[in-house]
């Protein structure tokens, strides 16, 4: 297990994250400082950033002391020099989720944050250009939210019974 950088806001830390050396659960206030501390500690690349909507799975396993919210932003950091990965899961809020943007630390999160905004409606404070990226501009709603309909074409079987 690796240590959280000394001067970082600790949050809740767990070592049993799968395929990952460390899992961190900072609060929204600690999030930006914790990521900055990891960056200073040799995590050169923010490999991935994505959102998750836990509307239909609120009872997920979280370490003690983490207050679960509907939306979560998951960040995977990668250290090339130490060959380690860290996963940071920040609870982004229930309605109108909002977290700080990592753009000032890792400019490469720009497109990923736009995608999370587009798909989940998570707002990223300080992002230079928070617009939709995959969906058309006038699209309503955020498709990967769990309360967003999937949309189906009804299957018409042969000789389906008419209305009785």
């Amino acid at each position, binding site marked *: 297990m690796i240590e959280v950088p000394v001067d970082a806001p600790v949050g809740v830390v767990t070592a049993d994250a799968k*395929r990952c050396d460390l899992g961190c659960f900072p609060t929204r206030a600690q999030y930006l400082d914790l990521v900055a501390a990891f960056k200073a500690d040799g995590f050169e690349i923010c490999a991935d950033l994505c959102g998750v909507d836990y509307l239909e799975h609120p009872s997920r396993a979280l370490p003690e002391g983490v207050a679960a919210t509907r939306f979560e932003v998951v960040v*995977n950091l990668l250290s090339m020099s130490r060959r380690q990965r860290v996963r940071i899961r920040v609870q982004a809020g229930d309605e109108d989720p909002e977290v700080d943007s990592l753009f000032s630390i890792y400019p490469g999160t720009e497109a990923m944050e736009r995608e999370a905004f587009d798909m989940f409606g998570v707002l990223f404070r300080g992002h230079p250009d928070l617009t939709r990226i995959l969906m058309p501009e006038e699209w309503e709603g955020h498709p990967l939210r769990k309360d967003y309909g999937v949309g189906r074409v009804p299957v018409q079987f042969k000789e389906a019974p008419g209305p009785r």
Partner: protein
Amino acid sequence: MSEPTVRAAERLEPLAVETSEGAQELQRREVTAATELGREVGSVLRVDGHTFDPTSVDYERRDDETMILNMGPSHPSTHGVLRIMLELDGEFVLRAKPVIGYLHTGMEKTGEQLSYVQGATNVTRMDYLSPVINELSYSMAVEALLDIEVPERATWIRMMMSELNRISSHLVWMATNGMDLGSTSMMIYGFRERELVLAFFEKTAGLRLNLNYVRPGGVAADLPDGWRDDVTVICDTIDERTYEYDQLLTGQPIFRERMEGVAPITAEEALALSVTGPLLRSTGVPWDLRRTMPYLAYDQVDFDVIVGTYGDNFDRYAIRLNEIRESIRIVRQCVEMMPAGDYRSQDPKVTPPPRARIGESMEALIHHFKLFTEGFQVPEGEVYSAIESPRGEIGCYLVADGGPKPYRLHVRAPSFVNLQAVPLLMRGGSMSDAITVISTVDPIMGEVDR
């Protein structure tokens, strides 16, 4: 032909309002926020500490001196439906912005509706040039959550198929890159050689593309009879032909002129932009997950990680060409060292009973039926499994809620992230170099838009 009497500002109004992407598009300078303008011209990355220096941007420039040109989404050199908006000063690119989403089909949402058994058919269509590697990243994520071991033979088959897939993917890159630079011969040669690999895929998995071959628990079928001969012929042929590519392109003065020193990127910039794959290795960073964080049996085979020096187009070309050779080396070792045994896990939870058993045993029939209708349940948890695709780190972030379908399936698509380097690489170059930039970044739109 453009009419000189029409002012640029008037021309910038979208021609068809209903197809406009609004704020996603490249805006005129005077309506673009300072921070955004800074990002677009790449100056965010050009200064120390990656902080934005407002003085580095020319705000005073009048709009009618420059032209915003829309390239794509349907353009032969954009490799699909990539749309890039360029602000040009004469022939030189001042700003560039990719506008994407034209191929968005909601594959991550679809992944939540499909069971784990069906999931591989979905992810295989994301990066349509390296289906095996997509399936592998997904299958490894499912296997990590299930905590099951894959038999040794399945591991080696996966590795061999991944490397064959890497060869075919890089061959398509060689082909399209040649086409973008005017070498149609290279285009025909690249696709011709790729056909050898695809024929072997068809023999093994039944399909040429979108194989659905790597599945949680192993692979779909054992290698066909005579596979050693087939694979050896593929290796010998392509290995020999790479030297013909050398003759055709590597030493050719026009080609070198277009590639050498064009669109360089430094290691710091690449790392800040989360760029991975050949694009990152071209800057001299020896980061290849096959070597640095080995998965499958990559720690047991002998191969070199190819790195560049200057981070320019030519380095990216040379890396891909030599990675074909390294992949051939790995495939040859796979042929030699392929162990005997099962090609899929014998864990009944994920693997259906053999076909012969279904005819004679009711339980086997029920088992088979349940597995393909209901699927198997994966314990609650989340995992991020990252492997090296031909374009960089492909990661699969999977959240399971204990049911038979993924709760959330997110794919970290290397092309999607690498595309962020395009504005930086294009900046200051000429319009014709912009074409080579798109080509050497190698975005696969199916993966970018998912």
